[in-house]
Structure formats: structure tokens, C-alpha cells
């Protein structure tokens, strides 16, 4: 009974050395992008209200919406909406019980990240 071979266990991870997995990053990004989109939609609705109200009000809102700040918010929102879009589709796929093995889940994660950047670029090119 002597000399029992010790099982090699992974070290208990703590936050500073923990290698966060792609699936975890892409999961939390879904939540962050979805909730952050409130900023873009609020700015968009305010801009639409101004367009419906008066030329002076529109001048103010349009100046903000087309300023560097507006560009930042809307470009960020374009990426956020596409990321959330792809990650949402991935959720529907997961809900069907598919793609849950690690290699497929990681591929889907990269698909969300790369796909969202590509779709954002296409959107910006289409609307400018």
C-alpha cells in the first residue's frame, strides 16, 4: 500500500494567475455589450426627438451625435450590437443543446469576436 502515486492536480487558481478562458470572456462580453447599448439607444432617441421638435433643438442634438463623442458612442454601439447579436445567436444554438463541447464552444467564441469586428466594419462602410 506504500508509495501511492500522487494524482497531479492543477494548482488552485487565484485571480492573479488564473488564465481566464475564451468562453468566459465571450460570456461576460455579452452582458457588458447588451447593457452598454442603453447609451447608444438613448443618444439615438434623443437625436430623433430633436429632429421631430425644432431646427434649433436638432442643431444641438445633431452637433452632439456627430461630434467625436457621438462617433465614439455610435461606433462602439455598432460593435456592441453586432457582438451581442452574434453572441445571442450562439445562445440560441447552445439552447438547442448544440455546440457545448469545448473545441466548438471556443470556435464559436472566436466567431463572435472576429464576426462582430467584420460586421462593424461593413456597417460603417455601408452607412457613411
Amino acid at each position, binding site marked *: 500500500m506504500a508509495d501511492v502515486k500522487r494524482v497531479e492536480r492543477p494548482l488552485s487558481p487565484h485571480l492573479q494567475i488564473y488564465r481566464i478562458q475564451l468562453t468566459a470572456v465571450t460570456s461576460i462580453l455579452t452582458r457588458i455589450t447588451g447593457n452598454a447599448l442603453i447609451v447608444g439607444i438613448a443618444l439615438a432617441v434623443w437625436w430623433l426627438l430633436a429632429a421631430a421638435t425644432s431646427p434649433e433643438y436638432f442643431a444641438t442634438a445633431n452637433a452632439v*451625435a456627430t461630434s467625436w463623442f457621438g462617433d465614439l458612442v455610435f461606433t462602439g454601439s455598432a460593435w456592441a450590437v453586432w457582438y451581442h447579436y452574434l453572441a445571442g445567436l450562439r445562445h440560441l444554438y447552445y439552447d438547442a443543446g448544440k455546440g457545448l463541447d469545448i473545441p466548438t464552444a471556443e470556435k464559436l467564441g472566436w466567431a463572435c469576436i472576429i464576426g462582430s469586428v467584420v460586421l462593424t466594419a461593413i456597417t460603417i462602410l455601408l452607412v457613411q
Partner: protein
Amino acid sequence: MRYLTARKRAEGKGASHTGTEHHWHMTVSAVALAFLVPTWLYIFGSALGQSQEQVVAIFARPFPAILTALVLIVGMRHFAMGATMMIEDYAKGTARKMAIIFAYSLSAVIVATGLFALLKIAI
């Protein structure tokens, strides 16, 4: 006397007492938004940066107006329920209740404002 057994009444309801209602609503609105959002992004993105007359002319047309209304109604409901999920994970007690009420209120204000703007442009 109730003919349903306790087991039968509890089945599928889980800890939330509403079963899978929340999840199912998120699924339905996600599918709806998957159809609505790409076209809306194109319409809104094209309108952004134009003059006021052009913006009003775009959103006075039926398709952009109805699509925008749908995106707002479905999207803000999806937001309020999604934000609730996040709040429930990170806050508790009174802070949780207040944050959830705030999320729903903010969504309602944005929907009402957007619909008012669309109506004003339409008439």
C-alpha cells in the same frame, strides 16, 4: 379542495416561481430582434449625419417608422429584462429592487420618447 397535487403545481416553476417565462421571453425577443436590427442599423446609420429635413423625410416613411417603433418596443423590453438578470446577479435587497425599477422606468421613458418623436414626424 384542489385536485392538483402539490407536485403538479410546482412542476417546472423553479426558484423564480415563474418557471422559464423570463428565459422564454428573452428567446422570443432575441429572435425578433435578430430579424429587425440589421435593417434598422442601416436605416439609422444612413440617416445619421443628414440634414433635419432629410432625417424627417426618412422617418416619415412607413417602413423606417414602423421598423424603428418595433426595434424600440421589442428592444427596450429585451433590455429591461436582460438588465434585471444582471442586477439580480450583483445586487440584493432594496438596492436590487430600486435598480430593477430604474431599468424598467428608463426603458419605458426611451420607448415613449421614441414613439412620440416618430408620431410627431409622421403627422
